[in-house]
């Protein structure tokens, strides 16, 4: 079955001026046309079905935003094919825009000076939403979040959390087939994050909206995505169920300890004790982190062993973070 988004062997290249160093170099740059080609997205293919929530992950500069810009029709791919809702986004930007909603993290797309309700009314006209469709959506919103206090507040007076929430509501207002969420929970507190995750989940369930979510927060992924796609240096590294990833990486835990004595020496000593695990230290916070593979040794065993040899002042146990998963995938590949 053809997906709602079909991406085939898409590559995007940018031409970047080779900058030289120093004042003399800058002067030379004025006249030279010495470009190098940077491949931001390299031969990526994927097929996304209606109603899926896909986590699109990767470190900063991996090519996530570039891919999303191509799917929304802002950028033209250098080669390859993209079909969104059966049309080529770059050639039909405005037509494509009718069927998608976009939230770009910290950049609000609402009218800054207007109360939210006025923004909604403008969007109703711009997207030509029918009265019944609009009312139905507002009713749904009312049942999902406490929207009343937001409606009459100008966007500029809102907190970041309220603004993000409003932006998400605005993106879903015209009942689009696909919504792109670029780091929607960035900079938000824990309760707001939870609220936003619940909202996205409910809207996806209620409206069967396809959601493409980029994030650095593993909590977002755990709460929302069944499938994740990982990209780095423009190349696709992983595209599968999250369960698969978890079964592979779930056995890793990070044990962080604060111990007496010189940090560097202690780190070295612990590394010597556990040559198989990676041991790092954070000099500012004075944490020593041990990435424990629980298939080999239980994390509590490691802790009790450390207790015998060191005086532990403080300890923390952490699940492996997105960054570490991606780093591991990048370093070792997917088995």
């Amino acid at each position: 079955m053809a997906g709602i988004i079909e991406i085939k062997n898409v590559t995007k290249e940018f031409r970047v001026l080779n900058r030289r160093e120093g004042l003399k170099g800058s002067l030379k740059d004025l006249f030279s046309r010495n470009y190098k080609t940077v491949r931001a997205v390299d031969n990526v293919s994927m097929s996304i079905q209606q109603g899926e929530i896909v986590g699109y992950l990767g470190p900063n500069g991996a090519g996530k935003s570039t891919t999303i810009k191509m799917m929304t029709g802002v950028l033209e791919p250098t080669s390859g094919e993209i079909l969104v809702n059966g049309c080529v986004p770059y050639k039909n930007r405005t037509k494509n825009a009718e069927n998608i909603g976009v939230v770009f993290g910290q950049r609000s797309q609402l009218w800054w000076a207007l109360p939210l309700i006025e923004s909604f009314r403008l969007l109703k006209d711009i997207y030509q939403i029918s009265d019944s469709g609009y009312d139905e959506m507002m009713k749904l919103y009312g049942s999902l979040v406490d929207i009343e206090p937001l409606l009459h507040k100008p966007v500029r007076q809102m907190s970041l959390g309220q603004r993000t929430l409003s932006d998400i509501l605005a993106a879903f207002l015209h009942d689009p087939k696909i919504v792109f969420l670029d780091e929607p929970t960035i900079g938000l507190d824990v309760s707001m994050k939870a609220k936003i995750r619940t909202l996205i989940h409910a809207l996806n369930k209620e409206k069967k909206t396809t959601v493409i979510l980029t994030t650095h927060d593993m909590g977002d992924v755990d709460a929302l995505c069944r499938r994740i796609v990982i990209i780095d240096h423009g190349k696709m590294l992983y595209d599968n169920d999250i369960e698969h990833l978890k079964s592979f990486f779930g056995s890793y835990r990070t044990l962080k300890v604060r111990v007496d004595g010189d940090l560097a020496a202690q780190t070295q000593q612990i590394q010597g004790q556990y040559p198989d695990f990676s041991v790092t230290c954070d000099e500012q916070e004075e944490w020593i982190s041990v990435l424990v593979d629980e298939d080999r040794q239980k994390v509590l065993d490691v802790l009790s062993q450390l207790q015998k040899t060191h005086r532990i002042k403080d300890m923390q146990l952490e699940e492996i973070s997105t960054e570490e998963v991606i780093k591991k995938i990048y370093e070792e590949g997917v088995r």
Partner: protein
Amino acid sequence: MKRKGLRFYLHIYRKILAQDIKSKMSYRADFIISTIGMIFTNISGFVGFWILFRNFPSINGWSYHEMLFLYGFSLVSITPVQCLFDNNWSLRQQVYSGDFIKYCFRPINLFFYYQSEVFDIKGLGQLAFGIGTIAYSWSRIGLAFTPLMLLKLIVFLITASLIMIALQNAAAATCFWIQNSFYVLDLAFRFKDYAKYPVTIFSTVFRFIFTFIVPIAFIAYYPSLVILRPDEIPLLSWLSPFIGIAFFFVSYKIWMRGATRYSGTGS
């Protein structure tokens, strides 16, 4: 989906405008101070003008009141660009910071959506100044007031506005290609100061530049000739409405091409 014609856009524009004015009024101090500022800017312009004519009874065959007409004409013709296209001034900033991308996600014309966002209400005061000046000089010169003359005046005011808008669009759009485009825009806007003088007072070189390269002579001079010098209207005056439309269209195309080329900074 219905086709999005002129009516659709007018409707949207009216709504955005009404909202924008409503919200501007809520910053009352800001509104009052900037209005006072605008009034003083205009008064100082007039004073400079008046002092000039205290010393020279006429400039190159143009009398005080004729020059005043030209002055009022240029004031009125730059009103639309100030009121409706003011967002061009922040284009550079928005492109540089990457905020411009938010305009690309809506199913409406990009240029329209961008410009519709800001309406500078202060320009209306200037419009009143300009109309007053035209009316005053009109009666002092002793021009006839017929429907035909009024029609001519309106047509040529629109022409002049289109050229001013075109100049600013094109200048603002340079930011899609070059980093520090503020100077281009600033320069283009300063050129308007020359628009209020008859182009004949400049040397041949500048006359050529102001007519064919940076067409500011079309902002006030060529159109005013139709009204002030009905016996010696050059062909260029009659052509100016078409030139105005053409320039506007070209500037729109440049702007849109720049926006299409725009790829946004990473986020």
